[in-house]
């Protein structure tokens, strides 16, 4: 047995991701903002367009960093939640690898990205393929799935790096293909920094 994606999606899709009176998703105790994806994409596009050429890499790193911070804390909330414990943990037989499978199934369940693991060398490298993600239809130039890069890096840190806070930034995620540039899917590779 390993984590079955469809089972996880069916279970987690029932969880409400609306914020409570404090703006938190009760299940994960993380802040939720129900804003359109277009807002993030538009912000990213404009800030990148406004950056001078010599600072574009820095701005891009900032966008990925923002996603990383979000992904690290939300990811931690997800994999330690009761619903994850009930839906995913009984199927975990391959440790961190299965937890990552479950995490990407959770991504899909909430419509954040339709993505999954293609290759995984434990603690060293992971290749992910995504058929839909925030920036898939965004404006701008080049590969620009900042959100997905940050989230994937965060998930790998949570799975294989030291516990918070020492384990943060152990890994880095690069994008090699993107729907936004006409590729048939987005491809992301996480490796040690």
């Amino acid at each position, binding site marked *: 047995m390993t984590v079955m994606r469809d089972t996880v999606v069916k279970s987690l899709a029932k969880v409400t991701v609306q914020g409570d009176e404090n703006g938190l998703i009760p299940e994960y105790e993380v802040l939720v903002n129900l804003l359109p994806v277009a807002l993030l994409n538009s912000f990213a596009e404009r800030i990148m367009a406004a950056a001078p050429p010599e600072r574009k890499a820095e701005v891009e790193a900032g966008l990925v960093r923002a996603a990383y911070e979000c992904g690290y804390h939300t990811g931690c909330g997800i994999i330690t939640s009761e619903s994850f414990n009930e839906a995913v943990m009984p199927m975990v037989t391959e440790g961190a690898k299965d937890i990552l499978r479950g995490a990407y199934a959770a991504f899909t369940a909430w419509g954040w990205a339709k993505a*999954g693991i293609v290759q995984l060398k434990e603690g060293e490298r992971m290749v992910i393929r995504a058929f839909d993600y925030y920036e898939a239809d965004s404006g701008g130039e080049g590969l620009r799935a900042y959100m997905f890069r940050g989230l994937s890096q965060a998930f790998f840190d949570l799975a294989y790096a030291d516990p918070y806070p020492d384990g943060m930034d152990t890994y880095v995620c690069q994008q090699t293909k993107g729907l936004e540039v006409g590729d048939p899917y987005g491809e992301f590779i996480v490796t040690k920094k």
Partner: protein
Amino acid sequence: MSDQFKQILSLEQKDGGLKGDLSSTNIADLLQFLSSSSKKGVIKVVRHPDKEQGQVYFDGGELVSATSGKLTGLTGFADLLGWQEGSFRFFPGVDAQNRTVGLSVQHAILEAMVSMDHGAGNVREQTAAVMEERGKDMEQAVRGATEVMNDLLEVPGIDAVVIVGRDGFVIDSTGSSLRVNIDVLGASLAHAVNGIEEMGSELSIDHFQDLFIEYGRSVIMCKPVGDAIAAVVTPDASKLGIIRHKTKKLFLELGQSF
């Protein structure tokens, strides 16, 4: 296939017999064609350049006997299937003098493929070696998975190819599978393979290597490729033997990508 063979064989018939070259076909294809169109006979093969000889007798769709040099029976037949260069000649109406195989042609091809797998040192060991190599540098895959999948789709009889993660995530697909709900197919395959692997584990009979699911004349063939599962769909079960033969290397190659 039949048009191809009719062309090959009719050209050679002018020379007084059915003969040809292994560069234009292979023994599995040839045997399937001849056994479906002739009642019985023997295919005699000479391998180039070492002039090793082999022969295959069939009768009424049954592979009666086979030899390849000193090898006989299914082992000899499996060896013959690996011959790449040489010439063949078909003699119709000839009876075998002994019976060393005694399986239907399709079944014999399938069994020979399994025998070849084991003879070559076990597919799993080969895959493990490939995985180890991959571990050294996973980025240096020889060809991309999409390219290998397209080659699979070129194999006669294969209608669709799907690569599914162990969790049921559909990594890639090509061919007519695009007509169906691919996510449902991926989930179903992953559930089936997980169940089968659990059964193998309970029975302590090694890991799953092949899975064939028959639906009337259609067959879905599944194989592990790296950490994923490859499934090919064929609408014609009679081509399964040749499909296994022609896809073996491609599956191993595909395993390097997952």
